[in-house]
């Protein structure tokens, strides 16, 4: 299954790695969330790692997309963890964050 704008790879039993590509259009988030969640659920995945390595800045719009995707996944019992958040991105998010995000964070995919 191909999802426009993201690269979704199975990285172990029940784990998926999502790498956003340059072509990712978060304005089309409803369709994207459905497609990603469906793909992970069909493969009996339980954990989605969202790689933020290539994002130096995360604005409120992008953060909202991450939060919504995490909540969608949670309703399907899929845990979402954002990995490799850049210092600049962490700084910008901390400026507007008012409550804890729906996703977890980690330095990278655990060994």
């Amino acid at each position, binding site marked *: 299954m191909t999802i426009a704008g993201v690269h979704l790879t199975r990285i172990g039993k029940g784990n998926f790695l999502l790498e956003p590509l340059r072509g990712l259009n978060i304005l089309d988030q409803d369709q994207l969330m459905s497609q990603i969640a469906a793909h992970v659920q069909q493969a009996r995945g339980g954990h989605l790692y969202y790689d933020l390595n290539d994002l130096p800045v995360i604005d409120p719009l992008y953060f909202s997309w991450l939060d919504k995707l995490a909540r969608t996944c949670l309703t399907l019992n899929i845990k979402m963890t954002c990995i490799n958040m850049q*210092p600049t991105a962490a700084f910008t998010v*901390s400026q507007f964050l008012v409550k804890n995000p729906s996703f977890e964070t980690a330095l*990278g995919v655990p060994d």
Partner: protein
Amino acid sequence: MVQKKDTSEKLNALFGLKVGNISTQLEEIGREFFCSSNKLMDEEEVTDLSSEFLHLMTGLLSSAEPQRRTSPQFHALEVFFSGLAQRMLMRGGHVEDVVRYAQNLQYSLIAALEADSGITFTQSRSVLMFFAQHFDELIMAIFRTYLLERENTLQAQEEELRETSTPIAEIWDGVLTLPIIGTLDSSRTMLVMEALLNRIARDRARAVVMDLTGVKNIDSQVSHHLIQMVRAVQLMGADAIITGIHPEIARALVSLNIDLSGVTTRASLSDGLKEAFSRMGIHVTQTAG
């Protein structure tokens, strides 16, 4: 205009006549201010300095418009005095020395020309005005350099102080400690935050222990920055533990309605480290003997 031109022509003619004598007197002034007790220059350097000054002054007087203080020739003189002030300050001299040197150059120049030419300059207001205006501007250049140097020194000292007051250390593989000492203000909190986040990324740190034992005061804005710092650390995937919060700061945080529910706090740095080790599955035991 005609009078101005006459004045400069007169001065230029005077310079042309007795340059050798003036040069010796200017060197003596240089020796008095820079070679005496302070040893800021050697004899050779003073000779070079005096001849360079004389060369630049002659250049100004022989220029098309010696009265114009925006001319390249006058700018060259300004650069000369700025450079001299900078050099002397770097060698531990005082700005007063350079200013007095410039003033004495002016007096000596007038006196020497007066003596050599036989013209009483005190009766020639235009000649005195010419020198006074030019040297006032040159002294301003010296002060500007002095202030700039002072500003740069203060800035460098401030940066050094900031760096030494927030030492981030990797106390264990993946565990960073940040003892914060002194008063936290917004700009300092931002600097600490920047350094800390970059360090987490560089060292792939999994836990950060921020020790506030040395912080005595905290205000509303800074407490918000502190919470932002904790959130940013957590967003990067590391655990943030705050230790050593003084009762006064705890009371201030409560009265400011700061939500610390998502923040792990421990009484002391030692407790904070134990918590960090425990979360990472590290057990520190005392060996027998």
